[in-house]
């Protein structure tokens, strides 16, 4: 039988506690009054602040809940708007459940990745801490912002502005029937008979100076005729993430692959799984977002390692954590203030089409 002595009774306690240097009495303060009073003053101060805020600003109360009227836009509470923002860019299971779960598990696992005692107990005390904080935060913030703008096809207008050497994002307006027919003739194309009737005055409703009816009209022909370079039609699938799904002629078989038939869960007594895979949707909603969410932080870490910006584990931790916080903030801000009716990106006048 082992006798419990002061030495071995401490065994189960972590080395870090046991090994800490005993401190000199003159470095110490008594909790009463030095800490208790600070806490008390802090509590009084915040009680007063909250009282003042509550007198000045009333909590929101809208009309009585009505399941028949869906407000546009419908938004979750602000701290979940980051997830709602993610929903617009990827599969709902990914945005609503898998990403937050993985994020929380990763957050909880931080101390198990980085167990060195480097930089403990002081604000950002390691040599490259501030650098890593700013690099992580800025890359996370602007990187996410660019991805959101990309998915809203805002790069299309920027391309057109550069290609046309103009700062005006405005495409040439819709031409009159006469102008459009002239553009078709200049290209060597035949003028459709319906358009010819309008120009000849045979149409009872429209005349030559009216704008072209949409059934005859193609933006790209008019753009070409007016010397305006639009986003190339061959790259149409790159306008948004959805474009990859919608603007590429995916073969019919790829649109519904019955995975349930392959898994045969019914053989094990479980109900048959109805799981039909659409390859294009899988790529757009799952593969690309997952690649981006894992790949971009890994890329950042690799670049930071190569350039010597991040050298220790703590450096990498600070960079990734700051990036995470920045992404959380920018997604929340965009979701809260820049999503309007139909969850469209606002202010929509900036770089908007037409």
């Amino acid at each position, binding site marked *: 039988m082992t006798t419990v002595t002061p030495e071995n009774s401490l065994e189960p306690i*972590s080395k*870090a*506690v046991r*090994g800490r*240097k005993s401190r000199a009495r003159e*470095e110490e303060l*008594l*909790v*009463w009054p*030095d800490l*208790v009073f*600070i*806490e008390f003053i*802090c*509590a009084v101060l*915040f009680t007063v602040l*909250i*009282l003042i*805020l*509550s*007198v000045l600003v009333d*909590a929101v109360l*809208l*009309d*009585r*809940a*009505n*399941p028949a*009227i869906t*407000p546009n836009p419908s*938004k979750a*509470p602000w*701290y*979940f708007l980051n*997830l*709602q923002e993610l*929903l617009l860019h990827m*599969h*709902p*299971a990914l*945005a*609503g*459940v*898998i990403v937050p779960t993985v994020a*929380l598990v990763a*957050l*909880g696992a931080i*101390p198990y990745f*980085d*167990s060195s*005692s*480097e*930089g403990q*107990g*002081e*604000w*950002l*005390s390691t040599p490259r801490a501030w650098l890593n*904080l700013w690099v992580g935060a800025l890359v996370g913030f602007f990187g996410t912002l660019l991805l959101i703008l990309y998915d809203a096809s805002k790069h299309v207008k920027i391309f057109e502005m550069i290609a046309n050497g103009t700062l005006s994002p405005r495409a040439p307006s819709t031409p009159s029937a006469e102008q459009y027919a002239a553009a078709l003739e200049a290209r060597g194309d035949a003028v459709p008979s319906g358009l010819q009737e309008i120009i000849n005055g045979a149409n009872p409703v429209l005349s030559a100076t009216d704008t072209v009816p949409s059934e005859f009209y193609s933006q790209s022909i008019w753009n070409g005729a007016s010397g305006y370079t639009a986003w190339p039609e061959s790259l149409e699938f790159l306008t948004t993430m959805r474009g990859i799904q919608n603007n590429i002629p995916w073969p019919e078989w790829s649109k519904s692959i019955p995975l349930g038939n392959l898994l045969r869960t019914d053989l094990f007594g479980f109900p048959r799984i109805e799981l039909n895979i659409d390859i294009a949707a899988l790529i757009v909603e799952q593969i690309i977002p997952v690649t981006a969410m894992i790949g971009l932080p890994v890329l950042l870490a690799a670049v930071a390692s190569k350039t010597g910006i991040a050298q220790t584990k703590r450096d990498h931790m600070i960079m990734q954590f700051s990036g995470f*916080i920045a992404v959380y903030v920018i997604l929340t801000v965009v979701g809260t203030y820049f999503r309007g009716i139909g969850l469209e990106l606002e202010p929509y006048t900036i770089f908007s089409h037409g």
Partner: protein
Amino acid sequence: MASNERPQRGTLGDRLYDAAFQNRLWRSIFRSGYPNTPRNQMLAVATNVFLHLHPTRIHRTHVKITHTFCLGGLSFFLFLGLTITGVLLMFYYVPSIERAYQDILALETDVRFGQLMRNMHRWMAHGMVLTVIMHMMRVFYTGAYKPPREFNWVIGVVLLVLTLLLSFTGYLLPWDQLALWAITVGTNMVGSAPILGEPNRFVLVGGYQVGQAALIRFYTLHVIGLPLIAAVFMMVHFWRIRRDGGLARPL
């Protein structure tokens, strides 16, 4: 000799002080005397069930406001404030879809300080989400999650989730358009999980759409279920701060 050792007769102040703090009543409540000597100051902390969450002595640097910005303490303070205002709000609120909205309107117009209570509860709830997130950032950037405090960080992450859930469940209770649709959007996210999503959403909402069943579930979770769980985790969280050697310091 002996007569020299006898203390001199005190001033009026001393005698008043003795009457106030050296009597049986004071002693029966507070075991130590008035905390005006280091010994009594330490006893004041060590023998008080609330104050003994603290150690009796701490390192000089730990009382610097800029070290912690009081964020963890503020989160706890807001939790207490939310409990008090929440109990007061419960006096006037019935979690039924027929009455809930009327009760909130009545609270705002007919109840003295009702609007103020509701405002305080709402702003403290938003404030607590913020202080908990900022507390997490403070602990991260001061490296205070490192061993031996790893597990307390994990408990902290659980408390962050509980804070969000507490706020989320409270969001439905006013039963206005904001509440109904925010919760509808939020619970639909749960429903989108693969395989288990839809059953989970069904259990949470108590049906296919947010209605009476959801309201009573959210109410019960909000006023008793989640606060109890959060209190247990807070107990462990605070206990572990002491056990793991107080605030982190450079080793």
